[in-house]
């Protein structure tokens, strides 16, 4: 279903100047809308954008990657994409401080996209923190294909739940979990998954969020027929496949493990092939 091993840069990628159409605070995040013109037609749920940060004489030399949350064609701005940015360190904080009208040097669309089933299936979308961002655009697409879309969102606290009104409409159900109980149910977003799996309520899981969450889901569905497509988040220096910093140990069909680049062979990967236990391990063994 999801074509892995693309092993070459997204054919639609290009570098251009995008202007900030709007920048709004949403809970602990910023929602940024960027004007991207016709490029929007190539942006698929799961793809990301790499943005130069810090301005002209910035000491930050690397781009920052952000998942494309939703795309739209508006009459006044042409093609636009939405990003959900957590002001974390210096790069993301700079981005969140860019006013309407600012111009950003961007490269997009990059990376693999979520595989879309050809038949109507029962889909479970699981998002952690700002990881919920790409799930709303995905939900819309799945809905159009007649899929049943259930959504689980989790975060440490309510301010870190991103769940826009419009987005909720694309899902058949939405449950929210926070670790401090400040919004939705108290607990982890992975807590209800086991029961859903047992109930045969799920054919495909789409997930996006912190790596431990993705690993936990992979573990939960191990041995089942459920397809698990996860969008990983490894630290990336280039985002276009030239630096080899963003690698993850991933098995192929024969079980042979290679270090694949999560920027071009991902971010969307088949969760059952990622060798979660080997991530960050020293394995200086030769293939």
């Amino acid at each position: 279903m999801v074509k892995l091993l693309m092993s070459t840069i997204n054919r639609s990628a290009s570098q251009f100047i995008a202007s900030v159409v709007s920048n709004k605070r949403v809970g602990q995040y910023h929602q940024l809308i960027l004007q991207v013109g016709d490029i929007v037609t190539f942006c698929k749920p799961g793809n990301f954008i790499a943005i130069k940060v810090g301005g002209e004489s910035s000491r930050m030399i690397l781009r920052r990657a952000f998942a494309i949350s939703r795309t739209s064609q508006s009459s006044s701005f042409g093609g636009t994409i939405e990003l959900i940015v957590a002001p974390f360190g210096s790069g993301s904080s700079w981005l969140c401080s860019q006013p309407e009208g600012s111009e950003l040097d961007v490269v997009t669309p990059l990376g693999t996209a979520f595989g879309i089933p050809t038949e109507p299936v029962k889909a479970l979308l699981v998002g952690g923190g700002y990881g919920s961002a790409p799930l709303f655009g995905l939900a819309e697409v799945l809905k159009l294909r007649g899929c049943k879309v259930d959504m689980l969102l989790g975060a440490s606290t309510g301010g870190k739940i991103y769940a826009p009104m419009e987005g909720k409409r694309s899902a058949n159900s939405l449950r929210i979990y926070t670790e401090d109980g400040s919004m939705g149910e108290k607990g982890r977003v992975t807590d209800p998954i086991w029961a859903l799996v047992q109930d045969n309520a799920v054919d495909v899981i789409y997930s996006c969020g912190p790596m431990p969450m993705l690993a936990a889901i992979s573990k939960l569905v191990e041995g089942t027929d459920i397809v698990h497509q996860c969008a990983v988040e490894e630290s990336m220096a280039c985002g276009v496949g030239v630096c080899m910093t963003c690698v993850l140990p991933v098995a192929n069909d024969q079980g042979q493990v290679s270090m694949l680049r999560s920027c071009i062979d991902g971010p969307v990967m088949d969760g059952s092939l990622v060798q979660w236990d080997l991530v960050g391990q020293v394995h200086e063994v030769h293939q």
Partner: protein
Amino acid sequence: MTTFDFSTTLGSAWFPTPIFTASGCASSGKELSQFFDLKDIGAVVTKSVMSKPRHGRPTPRMAETPSGMLNSIGLQGPGIDSFLANDLPWLIEQKSRVIVSIAGETVEEYATLARRIRSVSGISAVEVNISCPNVENRGLVFACDPDASRRVVDGVRKTIGGELPIIVKLSPDVTNLPEIAAGVVDVGADALALINTVLGMVINLDTMRPHLGGKTGGLSGPAIRPVAVRAIYQVHAALPKVPILGMGGVSSGRDALELILAGASGVSIGTASFGNPTALMQVQHELKELLVARGFTSLSAAVGFAHREEM
């Protein structure tokens, strides 16, 4: 209107422009070809290839630092067989000029790699990356040991014969760079590549341990440009006839010009491509404009110009 001669040579190899990729910063070339035509630059310097496939170092493999970055990739790659079967033919098909970078863990491995590529056509030169741990000598990096450096280059020279120019890539992490440079030239290096990354470390303040999986990493980017300029200037002063492929923190035409005036005949762009996938085209364009604006009629007239006598 006079025409400007932008071409350059490294040993017997000729290139239409002096702007090259840096080894390990352009993967096999395919990925950047999405952004520009590889035959429009001087040459693609491939990532260092070893005799066997390698997984490389554990992640995290990078850390951003002020105006720079650390990497510890550990020469992940498919090995020479796959390189010759897949990557090289693709580059040749693109009409790209190719400099093949080789790396080994023993003196013998370098010679073996040289043997594998000596009769392959379509290669302009070989870059010998000696910034690798020597497994036969407590992991001491070849480039930090004058004797081991010479032995590697001697082995490659003898295996490869007189045809293919050998560019030896040196590490700046040494007490006496001109001495190491003279040593490898002595045993047959046709040109020198300066500089490889500077050894560095970042401590992660959350885990309170070294951030990189490999603990230490190589510092690259604008932060190290003054070190690169110094290294090129020193080596050009000591060995004025030996061409230098300069690199280290170049991200604009003005940066490239600095390296050329210091003594570089060509300039590789590494880290700058990460932040700007069209950096090579931009640097190439800007450099030409700057040279013309200064009245140079050829690139070669500018090489080492900062060394000229006081008038």
